[in-house]
């Protein structure tokens, strides 16, 4: 329509989509290179790399759930509590001697139901913002978790229950050493992230989730049942928190009252660092993965260098502010007003 304007804009408009998609991966690569230079003997060793993946395994599930919620321009503050409640119920069911497949299904069902409560609360009770509903359930679910467990840790699960969080895939048949195994949790992350990538980008429901975040009125005018989609999103977020609980059960062999404390903030941070916009409608599954990795590598690298955890907090906070500032600049460039 306007030829003169077209030429002026074409360069940065062409670059923005690529920056949107891959900018965060460049940051991730940069961090890996820097860490490798600082810690050449340890950082990229098999043991340390698998360690990073084991450490991020359950957080990555929470972050993925929160990501979908953020895409709808919502927020879920309760994922840490959902994970704790799911973990406690799992521990109780396990202690009661239920068969392993029941124990494994328990956190998934509990997580899903908690998410369903969030979704129904936000839509049916017409909460002014998801922040309020999930702030409420942050307390409710953790309180419930303490009520059912008496607030004390419950330890000792069977190997089947611990498999996803603790299992090892032997790679000696590839000529590798016994210590060079693949954590089952790493494979699980890859599978879950692939499924949700396909869901968000290649199904109608996924597209509608983005549309709701972009303009809920447009979604409604297009005949999309916005409330139904929101309930699905919050339920899936709870379900993923349940998977997180199952992984954590495997890793720690214990259900404990402080599980997932403040991890909802880590999950939100990973999404924001990974390029999901708080205004909704923007962000990628790959970006969330990069965000989780960046936080994991930062913690791991700083631990290797013996930097105090106080500095870790300062650094992670700084990265969040920087990432959001980049998002603000991007919006200024990419949107015509």
């Amino acid at each position, binding site marked *: 329509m306007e030829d003169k304007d077209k030429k002026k804009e074409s360069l940065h408009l062409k670059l923005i989509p690529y920056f949107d998609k891959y900018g965060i991966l460049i940051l991730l690569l940069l961090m890996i290179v820097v860490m490798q230079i600082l810690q050449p003997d340890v950082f990229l060793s098999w043991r340390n790399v698998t360690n990073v993946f084991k450490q991020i395994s359950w957080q990555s599930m929470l972050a993925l759930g929160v990501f979908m919620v953020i895409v709808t321009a919502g927020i879920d503050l309760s994922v840490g509590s959902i994970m704790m409640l799911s973990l406690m119920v799992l521990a109780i069911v396990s202690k009661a001697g239920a068969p392993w497949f029941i124990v494994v299904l328990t956190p998934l069902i509990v997580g899903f139901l908690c998410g369903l409560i969030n979704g129904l609360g936000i839509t049916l009770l017409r909460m002014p913002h998801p922040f309020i509903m999930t702030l409420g359930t942050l307390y409710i679910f953790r309180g419930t978790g303490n009520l059912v467990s008496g607030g004390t840790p419950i330890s000792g699960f069977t190997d089947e229950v611990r498999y996803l969080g603790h299992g090892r895939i032997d790679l000696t048949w590839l000529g590798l050493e016994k210590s060079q195994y693949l954590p089952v949790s790493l494979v699980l992350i890859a599978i879950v992230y692939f499924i949700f990538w396909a869901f968000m980008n290649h199904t109608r429901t996924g597209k*509608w989730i983005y549309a709701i975040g972009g303009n809920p009125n447009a979604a409604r005018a297009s005949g999309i049942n916005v409330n139904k989609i929101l309930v699905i999103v919050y339920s899936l977020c709870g379900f993923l928190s349940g998977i997180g609980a199952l992984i954590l059960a495997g890793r720690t062999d214990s259900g404990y009252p402080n599980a997932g404390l403040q991890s909802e903030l880590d999950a939100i941070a990973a999404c924001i660092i990974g390029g999901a916009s708080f205004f909704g409608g923007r962000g990628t599954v790959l970006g969330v993965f990069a965000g989780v990795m960046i936080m994991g590598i930062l913690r791991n690298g700083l631990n290797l260098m013996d930097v105090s955890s106080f500095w870790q907090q300062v650094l992670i906070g700084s990265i969040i502010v920087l990432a959001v500032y980049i998002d603000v600049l991007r919006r200024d460039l990419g949107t015509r007003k």
Partner: protein
Amino acid sequence: MSITKNLLLEAKGVTKYFGTITALENVNLKIHGGECLGVVGDNGAGKTTLMKVLSGLYKPSAGSLFFEGNEKVLESPRDSQNLGLEMVYQDLALAGNLPIGENIFLGREPTKNLGLIKFLDFKKIKELTDAHLEKLKINVKSADQKVEELSGGQRQAVAIARSTAFNAKVVIMDEPTAALAIKEVGKVLDLINSLKKTGVGVIVISHRMDDIFAVCDRVMALFQGTNFAESELSSTSRDEVIGWIMGKK
């Protein structure tokens, strides 16, 4: 493309009360294929209420709607869409973060089955979008461009393209040029003219006499919820229509 002069939509004696307020009283309206009807009236004259009745958002308190000669009762906007009656809203109702093609097909995306799961058919979305934009002579860089990167006029064009992507027979546009820069108004009016050529009946609600006189074949004025005046465009003048809006004949 054949220009049909068949009667597509007729409203007979439409009346709408909100409590004790009479928003519409015994209003009649007709729209033919390939024709553009301008609806004018002051704020509160009942234009928006009439359009919401036609789009199925409001149920009329009395009166009836005939679509291609058959009486229809609209329970929801879905019903009117299924009949081929589409609205283009003033706030456009587009998702800026999605590309043009995905906005046009939002909520009605073509899919292909892969096993038990339905996946979006991006190739088909792109093909259909390109063909549709081509048919309406809408000029954009690519169907993959995000709507937020478009100018106001291009957005209006996408909104109109969206309303006609599913063989719409009647398109109702609420102030289609209100939010546009002057140089873009012409493009949208051209688009309305090319819609008419494809046999679509267009109803334009507008305050702008320039728009009405550029695209409409007929103009009707509402005043205090009633039919006040109606005329072929060729046998009236701007001053007369402005007079109707103010309730003077």
